[in-house]
């Protein structure tokens, strides 16, 4: 009885400290929101300056360009052979997504369901390509690919981009498979389904959301992947981001605005992908790549 009457008066002090905290934290809150807004304003400025410049006729020492035109887009489209570049980008991305799923999902299944000697070591091997910066392993990889005559055209670009993509699929799919009840598979096995039937008829339909999420994440990363494509691409196998880099580093030859127009095309492509991606995945998933690694 005494405890029940004691309990209610314990609440008010808690709420008063809560209120006091909120008042005391107010300047801090202003600073935090100020920093966030400052960041976003600058980010907006960075993106908008590219956008405005791509539509501007002449833009030198003024706040805004003298006039507006869309002709830079037509020029960029012709000058940089963007149709071919975009085709290559899409082909590479689709191949990388498809192959990395084909290779990665079965491995993720084995890692999620089985325990066997050396599992940790194998997991570490799959983790390494994600932890290493692309340039570090990209240069030896490009050397090997050139040695076998694979680099310089599309097969090399696809192979190089698979290196971080396959581990990425494995790392995102393993926790997803772990949460599927293994008894469903056992039941299918009892009813006489073989490994392949279980995979195609039982698991794949259940895995579709996870596969979709992994696919779209790999797609975003492949379209945006600069280093590996840059190191292995030949003149006719450049993806959009690499072509953008080359046109920027050779600026002075080309009009600044047509480079900007190309950057806008790249941006809008990425934003479309991003909008699609965010329908299926949480924003944090786009970055939390190794979050689901098991505890050491």
């Amino acid at each position: 009885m005494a405890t029940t009457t004691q309990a209610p008066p314990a609440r008010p002090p808690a709420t008063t400290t809560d209120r006091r905290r909120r008042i005391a934290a107010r300047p801090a809150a202003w600073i935090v929101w100020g920093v966030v807004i400052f960041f976003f304003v600058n980010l907006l400025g960075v993106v908008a300056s590219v956008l405005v410049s791509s539509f501007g006729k002449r833009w030198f020492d003024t706040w805004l360009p003298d006039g507006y035109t869309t002709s830079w887009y037509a020029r960029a489209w012709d000058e940089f052979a963007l149709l071919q570049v975009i085709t290559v980008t899409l082909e590479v991305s689709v191949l990388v997504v498809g192959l990395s799923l084909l290779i990665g999902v079965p491995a993720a299944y084995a890692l999620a369901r089985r325990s066997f000697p050396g599992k940790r070591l194998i997991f570490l091997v799959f983790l390494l390509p994600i932890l290493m910066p692309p340039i570090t392993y990209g240069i030896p990889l490009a050397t090997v690919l050139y040695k076998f005559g694979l680099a310089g055209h599309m097969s090399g670009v696809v192979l190089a981009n698979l290196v971080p993509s396959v581990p990425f699929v494995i790392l995102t799919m393993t926790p997803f498979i772990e949460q599927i009840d293994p008894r469903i598979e056992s039941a299918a096995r009892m009813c006489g389904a073989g490994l392949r039937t279980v995979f195609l008829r039982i698991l794949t339909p259940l895995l579709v959301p996870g596969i979709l999420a992994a696919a779209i994440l790999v797609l975003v990363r492949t379209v945006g992947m600069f280093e590996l494509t840059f190191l292995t691409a030949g003149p006719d196998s450049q993806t959009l981001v690499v072509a953008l880099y080359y046109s920027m580093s050779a600026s002075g030859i080309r009009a600044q605005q047509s480079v900007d127009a190309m950057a806008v095309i790249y941006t809008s492509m990425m934003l479309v992908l991003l909008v699609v991606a965010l329908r299926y995945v949480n924003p944090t998933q786009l970055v939390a790549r190794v979050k689901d690694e098991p505890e050491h």
Partner: protein
Amino acid sequence: MSDAGPGRPLAHWQHRLAERGIDRQLWLLVPALVFVIALFLYPFFYGLTLSFQPTKGGPLSDYARFFSDSYERGTIWITLRIALPAALLNVLAAVPIAYRMRGRFRGKRLVTTLLVVPITLGTVLTAQGLLNFLGPTGWFNRTLLATNLVDEPVRLTHNYWGVFFSLVITGFPFAFLLVLSYLSGIDPTLERAAATLGADWRRRFTRVTLPLLMPGLATTFCLTFVLAFSVFPSAVLVGNPAGETRVISLAAYQAAYEQYDYPYASAIAMIMGFVELVIIAVVLAARSRFYTGSTGGKG
């Protein structure tokens, strides 16, 4: 009986392996393993052996060449001078902001979505935008001039600061989203318990939340650092690739694609990987001293 003879030892052998967890299902791992070995481990060791077979001199002469030339050796310091402060700033700025935003509020999804944008844009586009925005006639300098904060345009591109800002723009959202996901993994009742025991918000943060968050922060720092350490496009485009921002990845690239000296390029790539792994090992060793239990916030 004749086919039971060879069959039995085989079954016996398979059975013993299956008891240890090795059976036919593990064939599912084979494509991925072959792939990682062929395209990651083999090139890596190929590069490693290649770096010990320089075009001239003894096995270690390419390493000696790198460390004896101050222009080359300096790239390590240049890279660290850009990558470490950028990674530190990104993580440290992310903590208070994520701490404030960890609860539910209207527009949280919008803020997180907006933050993903620079990550997906990538360094090349960020570089292009920074050149326009921070350049001497860009909007940033115009605003500073118009508000009389400075007398002449501040030089922010084609030097250290251009690269630094590009790393902050791509790295901060990355760090923020990671820290936010670690923070939301910490059980909020712990902090409420501390509040009931009379701890003010400062004590609750430093004694309860921060220790639980530390492992996550270490992981975030490592990942942000890896991103910043391999900075390449922005160092060329908004930096000064001949001097102030000649980072180590640029030195490796030039050795491979401008001098076609693959052994030397491999040696630089190995040095680069080694330096990076040392830093990560130090951070992870420090991380293992913190509590990494099941309360969340773990890395």
